[in-house]
């Protein structure tokens, strides 16, 4: 029985290992960050792209925002639909839209997060750790002898 478990564990680890190696080799070919998109502009011209970043400037009159980029042209102009709220300078935005030119995107969707909202997700996540541990150890205990978890008598 123990040997069967060990065999299954090794098999699962092997498959997981293959997935990790495959992901390591192929990841960059399927994850297009804004830097990659701009470096391969011809491939992405007039296609739908999604990216995120911090707003560096806001043009209220023309409903435009500007985001810094890590490569040339060093900034990107994003046209925000008239019916959507404009972010403020410093906000973190997630954008889905069409890349029209190397430095211009027409947004279809924009999600706006203030800088603290972005960090709050990590703070909000913290209570889940003691919550999960509490529930788990209330129900299960680890038997070193059998190297497995056993249900507690009162659970």
């Amino acid at each position, binding site marked *: 029985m123990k040997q069967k478990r060990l065999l299954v564990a090794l098999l699962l680890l092997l498959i997981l290992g293959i*997935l*990790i190696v495959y992901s390591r080799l*192929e990841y960059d070919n399927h*994850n297009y960050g804004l830097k990659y998109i701009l470096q391969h502009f011809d491939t992405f011209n007039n296609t739908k792209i999604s990216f995120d970043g911090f707003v560096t400037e806001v043009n209220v009159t023309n409903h435009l925002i500007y985001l810094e980029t890590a490569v040339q042209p060093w900034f990107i102009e994003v046209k925000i639909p008239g019916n959507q709220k404009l972010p403020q300078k410093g906000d973190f935005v997630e954008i*889905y839209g069409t890349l029209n030119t190397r430095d211009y995107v027409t947004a279809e969707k924009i999600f706006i997060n203030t800088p603290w909202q972005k960090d709050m*997700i990590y703070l909000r996540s913290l209570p*889940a750790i003691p*919550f999960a541990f509490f529930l788990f150890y209330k129900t299960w205990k680890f038997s070193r002898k059998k190297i497995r978890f056993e249900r507690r008598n009162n659970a």
Partner: protein
Amino acid sequence: MPDWLTHSLIGWITGKIIKSDVALLVIGSLLPDIEKISVVDNWFGIHSEQFLAPFHTPAGAFLIGGLLALFFESPKKAFIPLSIGITTHFILDVFLFNSSGGLRLLFPFSWEGWQYDVISSGDDWITIIAIYAAAFVYIIYLYYTNLTSKNNM
């Protein structure tokens, strides 16, 4: 990703409703976010996303669930709530807008990203809804537990 609190509460609610192992369901609901170790790695300048990305796919998460289940008396019985928890995680995440392209539900067969762009990861209203829903389910659970114990007396 919605935050872990939301994931764990939805896992807890699901466990209570379907009367499954709540503890394992909550653990399952958090398992795919093992990938988030890469956030900590990034703080130290290590880029581990390429290695950890499979954990945030159904294939990788169920494999981890399977491995974890082997450490229980009955792996099959443990795997079921873990899998349900993992499933609730992906159901929640698929509604998120993800600027990196969405969930890779068919990995390793396809790298296509799936997302319904309903919520942003920064939105806290989904957490608030989850807290209220969990409180509501807990009250109902207490009510029925009391009712059952009274009937048994």
